[in-house]
């Protein structure tokens, strides 16, 4: 069987259920693949791992992938299971912020590490300085939990629809206690979890063929996971996930972002993402060949 190493962008959780299911249910094996899934974490930059040869394919957000591409890591998007972004900014309803107009002079929690681009694009659009002061917003580099809101260190924080949002609910907030700014709904979203491989390796037809098999089997995994969320959550737990109830809920939310499982990248979403990155000078030139439909076309 062909060996494939997949590097995830984050720890084992239902966010990546499709891959875990494909492995556990033997979909990869059926396709003649021997897949190793490496969990990630805040200290792991999948772009670095793949550049160092530690992975064949990675799950990444497009912002990070395009930035790395400009730095010489020839990442190419080969599939885009996630159609919508799950990131949003939430503020307590009893706090000072009710609408975009209230941001001025307040503190907002933002995830960095390559996840800050949508936020800055948005603030750019609103014309708000991010340097603090009465006329701008103060940005707090947020830890990967919801403490800043609970501790009232920030007036709003970043959450994922499928994860931290529910931590807030668990912490006793009711949905009506929260005001939500969803990037997808505002049209400020950048593409999230896609699959990326190295350009030079893709030139090898054998590798491309392996990737076709891999993406196909992965999408089968996603289909199965969406159809059987509870079982999928169980599989995630077997692979090191934490808190089974939480994973079940996450599976449900993730399904909403994926929609009808289909690995194809929507070119308009790509153009919008690239433009937002260019506007903020995260990347300096229009990327060329950063995605390909070759793999998905062959499925």
């Amino acid at each position: 069987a062909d060996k494939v190493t997949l590097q995830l962008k984050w720890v084992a959780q239902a966010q990546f259920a499709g891959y875990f299911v494909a492995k556990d249910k033997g979909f990869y094996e059926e396709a003649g693949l021997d897949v190793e899934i490496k969990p990630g974490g805040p200290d792991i930059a999948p772009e670095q791992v793949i550049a160092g040869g530690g992975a064949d394919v990675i799950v990444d957000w497009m912002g990070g992938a395009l930035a790395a591409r400009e730095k010489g890591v020839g990442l190419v998007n080969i599939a885009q299971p996630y159609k919508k972004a799950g990131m949003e900014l939430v503020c307590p309803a009893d706090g000072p912020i009710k609408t975009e107009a209230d941001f001025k002079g307040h503190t907002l929690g933002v995830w960095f590490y390559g996840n800050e681009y949508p936020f800055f694009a948005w603030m750019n659009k609103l014309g708000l300085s991010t340097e603090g002061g009465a006329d701008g917003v103060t940005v707090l580099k947020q830890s990967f939990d919801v403490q800043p809101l609970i501790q009232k260190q920030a007036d709003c924080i970043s959450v994922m629809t499928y994860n931290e949002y529910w931590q807030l609910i668990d912490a006793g907030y009711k949905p009506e206690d929260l005001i939500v700014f969803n990037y997808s709904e505002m049209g400020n979203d950048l593409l999230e979890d896609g699959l990326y491989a190295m350009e030079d390796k893709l030139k090898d037809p054998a590798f491309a063929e392996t990737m076709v098999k891999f993406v196909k089997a992965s999408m089968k995994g996603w289909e199965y996971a969406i159809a059987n969320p509870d079982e999928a959550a169980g599989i995630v737990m077997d692979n090191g996930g934490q808190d089974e109830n939480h994973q079940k809920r996450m599976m449900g939310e993730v399904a909403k972002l994926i929609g009808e499982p289909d690995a194809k990248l929507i070119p308009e979403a790509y153009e919008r993402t690239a433009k937002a990155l260019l506007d903020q000078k995260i990347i300096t030139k229009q990327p060329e060949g950063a995605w390909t439909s070759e793999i998905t076309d062959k499925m």
Partner: protein
Amino acid sequence: MSAIRPNWQALAALVATLYALTALPFTATMGPALSLAVAALLAAGAILSMLRAARPIETTILAIASFGAAAMLLAGLTGAFGTANAGYFASLAAAWLLGWRLVTVLSGDGSHGDKGSSLVAIAVPALFGIWVLILWECIVRGAGVPFVLLPPPSAIGLRIAGSLPILAADFRQTVLKAVLFGYVVGSLAGFLVAILADRFRFLANGLLPIGNMVSALPMIGIAPIMVIWFGFDWQSKAAVVVVMTFFPMLVNTLAGLAASGDMERDLMRTYGAGHWQVLVKLRLQAAMPFIFNALKINSTLALIGAIVAEFFGTPIVGMGFRISTEVGRMNLDMVWAEIALAAIVGSLFYGGLALLERAVTFWHPSYRR
């Protein structure tokens, strides 16, 4: 006496150079002529340096050969990313060996009469550093290591030059606020607790095991907690530094307080000196080498601690913040620029402490040879 004075560095350099001759040219853009010139320079340097010449002449030969070859090898990399062959690296090794020989000759043999000028005292570590940079640059660019894994020093240097205001702001946030405060408070607390524990055995017996425990608390674990407790600004980083620096000072001070001689202690007893007088006039003095040991270790721990703590919640300024976010943006040159800043600050801090130590513990045998 023969006219030749062989040494292993020059001989090894010669062997490496010979090997390099079998693999001309060295890189895609380096013609055979230039490659040959490098090899010739290295061979000449290696042989000439072994002649029984006066030291200034020997050092000049070594400097010209090693740095001349290094310069040509560097020049040979333009437009040749990742194309260096084995001959290239063999020549690089030869140049480095001659550089090493140069350092050895400059440092002397450490005999009594050979104290060396202050110029040498600066030149030797500087040479070492320059060679680290040359090797790094040549290996990264010659072997084609991806930028996102390890950028070459030239790129880092450019980035430093172009980002001075950002670096200054980060320095202010991390060093001037978190590190200094945490270092002073943590070291002072460790010191005072050691004094108290020394006075009250009960406290020592109870506190030390618990002190051990706190000290080994991995900062990664306490950093998020400190952010929860002290807010996301520098105070929480300072708190991490306090916790990290506390224990080395406690342990070292206690060991130092036990280091005074029995006879000296008896002497103070005959004066009917109280605990605090013995402490101030005898035991603290004798403890100074240990205390400085802790201060030195803490100076590096404090910097690491503050930077790492900024990986958690922080305002969007600070060395740790920059490192963690720029890694995510694949701006590895910026990451290394911050690391270089940390290294410079840390070394200066440490150097200052070493000078102070020399002034305070001038009487210690280690300074009397």
